[in-house]
């Protein structure tokens, strides 16, 4: 599904190397987790994959189902099936959440040569998916993320993911700022989307999210590289001992 080879990235404006050769291969239908200390480059990886400005790729490749991601505009990556649930979802005053969702869904359908959803069909689907995430009509009407609590913003990200039905979902610290109940809702939302053709890359600091969303593979990222990969037990090790032991071991 997603294949990253020796990806090196620096900041565009500064001479600062952030990713120093990342290798990652995610098979269809699998869930991978990335853990790692703050500042190790996890968010940068997710932004570079989704096409945010401000970064310069200095080496390596990233491909989604064989197609070179790094060459595409952000909207084309989305249409190709990539989705990023933001660590800090963006507020857009003046754009209604519903308008935003419909514009996004129809833009992707159009890019893929599919018919746009009718207003009625769209409404039906949104309502149903919103309900399971406990997103009420008011939240759908309000401007995108404006005045939403931390948890509401994260649930809104999952709603977008559910509506867009991407193939490759990257979740950047979707668990941060969530209480236990919200975490459960979000995890259920994610698990409902798990399928043979869909893969997940879950970035998190905590084992507790991975209790709900069970990963197939866990990676540890440090200083711009993936330094160790293993099974779910690796996450438990981090939970119990922190990163120090692992980092010492690979140093």
């Amino acid at each position, binding site marked *: 599904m997603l294949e990253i080879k020796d990806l090196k990235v620096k900041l565009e404006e500064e001479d600062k190397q952030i990713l120093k050769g990342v290798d990652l291969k995610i098979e269809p239908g699998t869930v991978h987790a990335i853990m790692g200390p703050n500042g190790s480059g996890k968010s940068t990886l997710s932004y570079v994959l989704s096409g945010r400005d401000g970064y310069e790729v200095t080496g390596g490749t990233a491909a989604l189902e064989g197609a070179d991601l790094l060459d595409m505009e952000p909207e084309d990556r989305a249409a190709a099936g990539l989705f990023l649930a933001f660590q800090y979802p963006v507020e857009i005053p*003046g754009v209604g959440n519903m308008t*935003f969702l419909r514009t996004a869904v129809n833009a992707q359908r159009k890019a893929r040569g599919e018919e746009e959803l009718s207003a009625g069909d769209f409404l039906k689907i949104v309502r149903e998916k919103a309900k399971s995430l406990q997103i009420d009509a008011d939240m759908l009407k309000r401007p995108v993320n404006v005045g939403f609590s931390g948890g509401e913003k994260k649930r809104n990200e999952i709603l977008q993911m559910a509506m867009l039905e991407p193939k490759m979902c990257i979740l950047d610290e979707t668990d941060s700022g969530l209480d236990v109940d919200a975490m459960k809702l979000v995890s259920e939302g994610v698990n409902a989307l798990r399928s043979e053709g869909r893969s997940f890359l879950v970035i998190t600091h905590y084992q507790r999210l991975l209790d709900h969303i069970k990963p197939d593979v866990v990676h540890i990222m440090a200083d711009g590289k993936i330094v160790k990969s293993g099974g779910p037990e690796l996450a438990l090790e981090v939970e119990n001992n922190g990163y120090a032991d692992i980092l010492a071991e690979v140093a």
Partner: protein
Amino acid sequence: MALAQMKLDATEARLAGVTLPDGAVWARDARAAALERVRQMGLPTKRDEYWRYTDPSSLTAAEAPTAALLENDEGPLFEDVDRVRIVFVDGVFDPAASDDLSTEGVEIERLADAMQVDIHWAKDIYGVLEARGQKPVERPLAALNTALATDGVVIRATGKVSKPINFIYLHNDVASDAVLHNVVKVEADAEITLLETGPAAARFSKQLEVELGEGAVFNHVRAQGRDHERRAVTHCFARIAENSSFKSFTLTFNGVLTRNECVLEIVGDNAVAHVAGACVGDGKDFHHDDTVFVTHDAVNCESRQVFKKVLRNGATGVFQGKILVKEGAQKTDGYQISQSLLLDDDSQFLAKPELEIYADDVACSHGSTSGAIDETALFYLRSRGVSMTDARNLLTLSFLAEALEEIADEALAEELRDRLERWLARHS
């Protein structure tokens, strides 16, 4: 001194040979007095403080510069609105194209006809509100309009007017130079909605004087059109009485030069005065100026000024807005915001927001900002699959939304929003 004298000499030269339209004594007097005001003040030049950001020379020149007609497939606005259409072609009333003017709750007459009548209610408004509005800031082009206006209508609303009155300004002649003057009197507790649409002329001078009685309601929605090369200077003078409500919104597309002055005087307690505008401009030759002056001279009144401008490819936007709260105008709630969205580095927004307050128990606020598209929001939208162009246009529309929300009638607002959307699509 020498400069001032040069200005007056230039004004005399410009006015030489001008003849005022004929009419009843009061009408002739009003025009003559207005012409005298012009002579005293002199026509504006770009050296004037009030014209620092906008060059008036093409507005004061003897000859109007020509303006080509824009060809696109946008039809007329508000076609589905049940309304009374009053059509002017290049500034001349066209009875054949207009609807029957008899409508419930309102009397409508052509200005020229009203001005023939010896005793007419318009006598107390025509040129009167304009003259009051000359202080503390001089507006010579408004006085010139009062002196020379060749056409227009006078409207008196006596009850709740059953449908909106729509002034439709068609522009067919590339060299037309139109001077229109409209007068609206809304009697106590009466209610009227006025729509104005169309580019009007190559050069257009237009004035609207509005007198509100106690408890009167005046809603005004204007779409200032569309021909790229047209020029316009418009004035609105309103006197706002106790418990009455004045709301005006203007959307401007295109235009080499637009100067919209709105001068509101709140003279009765518990009144409301809102004036708002949105404009979209593309190109170095787009220049749009909103100049607003709101005077609070009564207790417990609310005023709002909400202006938003989207500028691209070297376009210029100007805002000069003032709230004056006179002594004794306690419990005034005054709000003013002017914002521009600059879509590139070549475009500019020049703003002069002012507050002048002589009462102590008031809540007034103003703000002015100028900014680019929010790159983070743009990326967020694109990461969801929305194209760069659509994302920009969506964010641009959302920037304008606060101004459009000032339109009370949702159907009218929706139609203007659609127009804007299509304008943005054509210009991206």
